[in-house]
């Protein structure tokens, strides 16, 4: 026995829109953030697959069209998006994006990790030494993509862009790390490694003139290099030592730069946006991120919640929709067999605000096909019934999704009520051009009015 749809509907909240209201007091207002000349860097962070890159690009476009001179640093954009912005050629320098409106400018670039690393080396070593480093197999492997290198280079590039001072706003996308926290940790880790005790140890013999220098080392140290030699193979150790010796002059630079970038992230002109989708894992990661940013004194401005679903028919609950769909599934002949006072005739028996049933064309009357041969496919009204049942099931799915998203968000809000949130409605397809980005930007900014 199916539940009475009328009853189910009566118990549903009587609001016109089903966009669920967020409980936190603060809603993130994007435009003042983008317009404020004091905002110099916006960092979009969050776990993979939540639309970080798209959010970064949309924010950049919106800021540019509102008059600012913006550069967007993306890490791994979708191919078609990169193509449409004209940044698919990997030359590691910002390109002006054509086709933007308004008085500002949008520049964009895609990070080339290896090239950025090479640039750092070239900037810090004389040409001869730089060439030696770039040719070293250890360096090649390190720069071509080691866990942490991408994060480090993203921050390095950010530092470079900031130092050029050609843009008044830099929007950064962060690498698709295994954990959202990686990009905070990796630069420090690589920085401290390159400047660390081990490196100094490995450098020592080379500095002192190769093997002769070993005599000056104490037993512990020679045991150490001996062990490493055994483990890694003599050739590798030699490569490391050569690399380290060649890099020696640049180490100070590495550490200083890592520290400078870190401080830049804490500076007042920097705004962190945590990006997430209303899914359990993404929001859990977002919550960790919020906590971590607080620990590091990094200025969080809010949470961008992408892909939030809504419904224009929110007053019809999932249960109500399913019960109604079930009614439509029954071929009419069954209803008629059960008498005309059956459930299907209920419109005139419920809802006092409704017009009298007589004013409604009564669908049960004179539908010959349904009573004729019982072949539903041949009957246009029957197929409309089936379609309508499908529409109702689709709606039930939507309402269930809505309440699941709401529960997930409530858990985040309970943990972090202080975080301002802006939500971006889900789109059916991917975004791959400026029009799509503009639309996202509009939705980002409109989150406020829709909610209040």
């Amino acid at each position: 026995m199916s539940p009475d749809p009328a009853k189910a509907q009566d118990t549903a909240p009587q609001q016109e829109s089903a966009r669920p209201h967020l409980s936190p007091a603060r809603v993130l207002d994007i435009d003042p953030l983008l317009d404020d000349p004091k905002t110099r860097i916006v960092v979009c962070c969050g776990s993979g697959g939540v639309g970080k890159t798209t959010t970064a690009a949309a924010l950049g476009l919106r800021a540019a069209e509102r008059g600012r001179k913006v550069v967007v640093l993306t890490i791994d954009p979708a191919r078609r998006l990169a193509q449409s912005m004209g940044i698919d050629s990997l030359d590691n320098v910002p390109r002006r994006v054509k086709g933007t409106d308004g008085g500002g400018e949008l520049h964009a670039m895609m990070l080339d990790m290896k090239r950025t690393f090479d640039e750092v080396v070239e900037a810090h070593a004389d040409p001869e030494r730089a060439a030696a480093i770039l040719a070293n197999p250890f360096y090649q492997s390190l720069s071509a993509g080691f866990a942490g290198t991408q994060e480090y280079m993203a921050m390095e590039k950010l530092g470079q862009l900031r130092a050029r001072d050609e843009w008044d706003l830099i929007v950064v996308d962060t690498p698709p790390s295994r954990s959202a926290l990686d990009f905070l940790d990796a630069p420090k880790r690589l920085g401290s490694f390159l400047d660390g005790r081990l490196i100094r140890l490995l450098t020592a013999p080379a500095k002192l003139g190769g093997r002769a220098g070993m005599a000056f080392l104490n037993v512990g140290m020679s045991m150490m290099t001996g062990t490493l030699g055994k483990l890694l193979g003599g050739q590798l150790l030699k490569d490391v030592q050569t690399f380290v010796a060649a890099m020696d002059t640049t180490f100070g630079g590495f550490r200083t730069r890592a520290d400078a970038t870190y401080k830049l992230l804490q500076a007042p002109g920097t705004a962190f946006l945590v990006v997430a989708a209303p899914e359990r894992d993404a929001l859990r990661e977002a919550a960790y991120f919020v906590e971590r940013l607080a620990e590091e004194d990094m200025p969080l401005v809010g949470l961008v919640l992408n892909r939030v679903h809504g419904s224009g028919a929110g007053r019809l609950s999932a249960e109500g929709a399913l019960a109604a769909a079930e009614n439509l599934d029954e071929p009419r002949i069954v209803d008629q067999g059960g008498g005309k006072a059956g459930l299907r005739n209920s419109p005139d028996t419920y809802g006092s605000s409704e017009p009298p049933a007589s004013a409604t064309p009564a669908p049960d009357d004179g539908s010959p096909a349904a009573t004729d041969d019982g072949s539903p496919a041949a009957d246009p009204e029957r197929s409309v019934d089936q379609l309508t049942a499908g529409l109702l099931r689709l709606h039930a799915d939507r309402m269930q999704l809505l309440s699941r998203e709401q529960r997930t968000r409530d858990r985040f809000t309970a943990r972090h009520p202080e975080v301002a949130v802006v939500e971006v409605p889900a789109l059916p397809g991917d975004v791959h051009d400026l029009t799509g980005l503009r639309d996202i930007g509009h939705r980002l900014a409109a989150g406020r009015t829709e909610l209040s």
Partner: protein
Amino acid sequence: MSRLQVVSGKGGTGKTTVAAALALALATEGKRTLLVEVEGRQGIAQLFETEALPYEERKIAVAPGGGEVYALAIDPELALLDYLQMFYKLGGAGRALKKLGAIDFATTVAPGLRDVLLTGKACEAVRRKDKSGRFAYDYVVMDAPPTGRITRFLNVNDEVAGLAKIGPIHNQAQAVMRVLKSPETAVHLVTLLEEMPVQETADGIAELHAARLPVGRVIVNMVRPEVLDPAELELVRTVPRSSVARALSAAGLGGARRGGNAERLVDPLLEQAAEYAERYALEQEQRAVLGELGLPLDELPLLAEGMDLAGLYELATELREQGMS
């Protein structure tokens, strides 16, 4: 059936979930599987709703029919200390190395070494036998790094052999590559029916092929159920609003006349159907792209209630039915 099953996929496609479901599916009927995590995310523990996994193989689930799933979160530092202890009896010196940052160096920054340690541990579990000569695990399932990094991760030979031309690390890399490039291994890629993951899957397969790594299957995850069929989608575009209103009214949802409860539902419902139609078309496009890859395709449904332990068993059953185990 390959004994080492590597599961990769773009971030956000649910590769950990698929790896766990596969481990369960392969364990069904008295088999024993080991589910290995290599990225230190503790995703397995979260999925199985247990406390964080230590660097130790422990049983985390029982499969239908008495099989067992063990899990291991490989920590590269501990794996390296293990390795030093095993080959050099370097317990104390290992700690000294750690203090100096050498372990951190080897596992974090030294190219490829971390990957050799991680894949090496998984391959060791594949080859391990008990006293009676039986394999300790019937299958080892690895929750591997994402598609963008999987080839480099598995192709440790190229990475490390170029650097360490001799020595134990070199030998270790060679031994690992023998397993990884053999039919003993299958690399599966998890994707969604969306443009970027599908593109990445196609790229990933090309890279794996180029590196001569054995590609297994493509698993399409979180597939939404078909609510409206193509004929109905066609009808959505032509159906008179008033007939939908009448049908809604007949279903007990209020008046069909202008302004009536049923009538006011028509537009939002048709709008949702239009969104569905757009997504459906995009999904069909991506399905076609995947079809051209020439690999076996499996589809796992989107679980309406979200992912939990019960859902994991449901997915495992699906994988069995689709012949993946």
